[in-house]
């Protein structure tokens, strides 16, 4: 990993941004200069200043503090979605690929194909629109959307790995099915899953912001970057900073995860470097 970061400057940049974001997400309540929910109507829509480097929003709230707390929400949603969809997706797809037969057909047809028959963002919108807003429902909806990708990837990888000699050797030594699956097969498919995690984190953060932008995600007054952008839309003429700073935070975050994911993919698959 350290050799990858030394060689690839963009990946190193992404890694540094992600580490900084994680720090901000963990310690946001202590490093925010102001309480992000305190309204100061005398300062509404004021542009950047020394006291408020990112300016104030339509209720006079400090945008820097809201952007910092927004990082906590984005990272929390991203991490939970990746964790849930990753664990369940890899288990469902992996077991289907390993066991084969009817279970495999069921997983491929019912779980993967039916989820992939919808464009991801539409499925997320549909689920949240019917389930209602709230961070837990949002995480659930995005996990369902992300699950199919992990299941398909894990199934494909397991189908490849289970024919390799070390698996045959484990079978010959009398190891049980679950033991082979969890101790031998799963660890050997972890690398491509890691690439998917990095790209999945970017997608989850983007989806969360999209849904919050549409008013379907995080309920106000919690500061989601997407919701902040939606608030700023009505003030493009008089307070463009309301749009610029949350946009920059969002793009930088998604870009960093994509940089890292891209570099990981190239690193793990030397063939793609050649092309």
């Amino acid at each position: 990993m350290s050799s990858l970061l030394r060689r690839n400057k963009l990946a190193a940049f992404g890694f540094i941004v992600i580490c900084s974001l994680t720090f901000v997400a963990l310690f946001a309540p202590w490093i925010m200069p102001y309480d992000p929910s305190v309204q100061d109507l005398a300062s509404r829509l004021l542009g950047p200043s020394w006291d408020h480097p990112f300016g104030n929003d339509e209720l006079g709230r400090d945008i820097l503090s809201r952007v910092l707390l927004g990082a906590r929400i984005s990272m929390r949603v991203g991490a939970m979605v990746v964790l849930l969809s990753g664990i369940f997706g890899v288990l469902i797809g992996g077991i289907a690929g390993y066991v084969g037969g009817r279970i495999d057909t069921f997983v491929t047809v019912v779980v993967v194909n039916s989820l992939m028959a919808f464009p991801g963002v539409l499925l997320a919108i549909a689920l949240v629109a019917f389930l209602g807003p709230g961070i837990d429902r949002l995480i659930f909806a995005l996990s369902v959307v992300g699950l199919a990708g992990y299941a398909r990837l894990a199934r494909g990888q397991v189908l490849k790995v289970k024919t390799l000699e070390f698996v045959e050797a484990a079978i010959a030594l009398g190891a049980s099915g679950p033991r082979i699956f969890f101790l031998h097969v799963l660890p050997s498919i972890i690398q491509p899953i890691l690439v998917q995690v990095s790209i999945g984190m970017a997608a989850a953060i983007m989806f969360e912001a999209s849904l919050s932008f549409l008013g379907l995600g995080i309920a106000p007054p919690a500061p989601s970057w997407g919701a902040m952008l939606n608030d700023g839309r009505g003030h493009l003429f008089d307070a463009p900073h309301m749009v610029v700073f949350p946009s920059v935070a969002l793009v930088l975050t998604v870009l960093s995860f994509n940089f890292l994911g891209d570099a990981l993919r190239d690193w793990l698959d030397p063939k793609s470097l050649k092309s």
Partner: protein
Amino acid sequence: MAAFLLRRLVLTIPVVWIVVTLVFALIHIVPGDPVAQMLGEGAPQPEIQKLRHELGLDLPLLEQYRIYLLGLLRGDLGTSFRNQESVLRAIATRYPATIQLAAAAILVSLILSIPAGVVSAVKRGTVLDSAIGVFSLLGLSLPNFALGPLLILLFSIFLGVLPVSGRGGLAHLILPAITLGGGLAAITTRMVRSSMLEEIQQDYIRTARAKGLPERVVLFRHALRNGMLPVVTILGLQAGALLAGAIITESVFAWPGLGRLTVQAINARDYPLLQGCILTISLSYILVNLLTDAIYSVVDPRIRYE
């Protein structure tokens, strides 16, 4: 050819059935009573009962499903709960605007991605290649709802050259098309680059160069034509996803299409209209994928024999 398309069409039927069934199931996953949700808090019980009866939600589930499927076969998507308009008519009047926007977005993406991808492949390993690579990733990381307002800020507010929102002439189409097509351009650029890299190493390209053909002809008439095959697939798959992306872009630019109608249905908790919108977008997605396969089999006959 016909056999290939027929086989592909038959394989699409279960996917359509799954989509139709899932869209039907959506209204049943609403926590609590969907009718009470639609009418809002504190709605009187008789009114809830009346609407439940009108929507057929008081019938057994299987009966509801049967009626829903029969309605779909007749082209009946139900009635909008808010303005009592036929859902099918509401969608039909907005759909052309979405198609227009999606087509313009594809055009924008092709205009940006083909030259960028070809240059990136030809100048592989140079600063230009890296810059195009970074811009592609930036395009992928820039969501529609961030790009849209930033473009409005630049072109409508600071420069004052393009309208902020609405649907009218060509000028109204430019910013929404760039917003929607930007992400697609990023994906397509990467695809054109990797596809061109493969093609320019082939023997027939060496032959074309040995014949003394100008480099422009070698690249665009020979390499790009073959290199576009995988690009067509990606473009087709992404074109379906564009329809979903239009939900956000149309909201940003107040574009009167299916996406904006979907958001209006969500905000009004107009579930019949929302179901109709989701079904239409999903079926369009499937149809575009099917058309992509058909086009691909025409462009590359080898695919029919696999």
